[in-house]
């Protein structure tokens, strides 16, 4: 999620409550489509009243993997590649360049880290720690947070670049 921190915290819990109740009542996990639709409908009630939420609802359900982008403007779209937040344009630059329809898990994770790293590098409103979750049909694997400045060095190395300026006497 991106946008107002309070809004994001609050609405995650509201949606989580609905998802848990759904699973208890129906004895089957909720679909990504349903959870994101509930979220979008809830946000739409507050349209124009100043909520600031940009979110991606992602998961695996009986229809397969899905990503839905839901925001406080009332937009809800199913996407294959998604980025939200102030640094999203920078991230899109990396995603649009390297994303392929068929990627291995490792490639996908590397792309995720790379996109975040580039977004935090160039956007003042992004930074800190990069958290990654890998969602599979039966599990959600959470990777430890990686400091983005350390993440930079990982990618800088392959580009042959260093953060410190080195003057050239030429």
């Amino acid at each position: 999620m991106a946008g107002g921190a309070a809004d994001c915290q609050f609405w995650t819990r509201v949606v989580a409550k609905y998802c848990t109740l759904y699973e208890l009542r129906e004895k089957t996990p909720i679909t990504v489509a349903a959870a994101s639709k509930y979220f979008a409908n809830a946000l739409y009630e507050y349209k124009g009243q100043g909520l600031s939420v940009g979110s991606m609802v992602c998961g695996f359900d009986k229809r397969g993997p899905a990503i839905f982008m839901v925001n406080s403007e009332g937009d809800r779209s199913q996407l294959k590649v998604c980025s939200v937040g102030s640094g999203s344009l920078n991230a899109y630059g990396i995603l649009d360049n390297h994303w392929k329809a068929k990627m291995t898990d490792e490639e996908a994770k590397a792309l995720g880290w790379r996109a975040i790293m580039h977004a935090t590098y160039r956007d003042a409103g992004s930074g800190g720690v990069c958290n990654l979750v890998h969602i599979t049909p039966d599990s959600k694997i959470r990777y430890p947070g990686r400091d983005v400045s350390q993440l930079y060095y990982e990618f800088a190395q392959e580009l042959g670049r260093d953060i410190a300026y080195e003057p050239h006497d030429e």
Partner: protein
Amino acid sequence: MERYDRAITIFSPDGHLFQVEYANEAVKKGSTAVGVRGKNCVVIGVEKKTIPTLQDDRTVRKIHMIDDHIMLAFAGLSADARVLVDRARMECQSYKLRLEDPVTVHYISRYVADTKQRFTQSPGRRPFGIAMLVAGFDYDGRPRLYKTEPSGAYYEYFANSTGRGEKAVREFLEEKYNDENVQDEAATLKLVVKALSQVVPSGASNIEIAVMTSATGKPGECHQRVLTTEEVDALLKVVEAERQATEAEEAARKEAARTGAPKQQ
């Protein structure tokens, strides 16, 4: 005892809700309906009451479609049923809008049952005088059958009946329902016709049967059809022929036993 059936919000001293029990009596007055869940189909059969000569036959319907993949039949007060059927239809569409998925048979049965229960716990209202058989397919292609009662109770069944001939039909089904008798559409249809014939005067004009099957390969796609009078006639003939065949067999066996027994003595 009379004091405790005025308002249904009151329990009687021995724990009865009399209005709910009286609602069950209204159900028992209704024409019989039977539902059977087959291996890959669901069949609902209803007794067609004789209608007044001046009534246009087309307006009489006992088997209703609730959504593309769910149908139901009821026994009891038809006005109450009309209202509940409409609510169920609205809920199906509302669910589809909210969840982007068709309802499961379980969900809509529970919704109808919840509505019925609410009316047993509200002041100034009376319970619905209907029992419903809700049949259909879930998204995963599994057929399901539920029965809801005026009290708001609902259970899933392999087969059940409601209405006037409820007991007799159910006893028949308890005896005859097994995997072999419902292995395909034809077998299930025969079972339903046999069950209904226990309580309904024989004749294609007295029986209406609807069958729902799931198209193989595409989840969520269902086909429902109401059997024509000719098809029902044909089924009745097959059932009658089988009955006569078993009767003849029985008679032959008895004859053989009778002639055989004295020798052993």
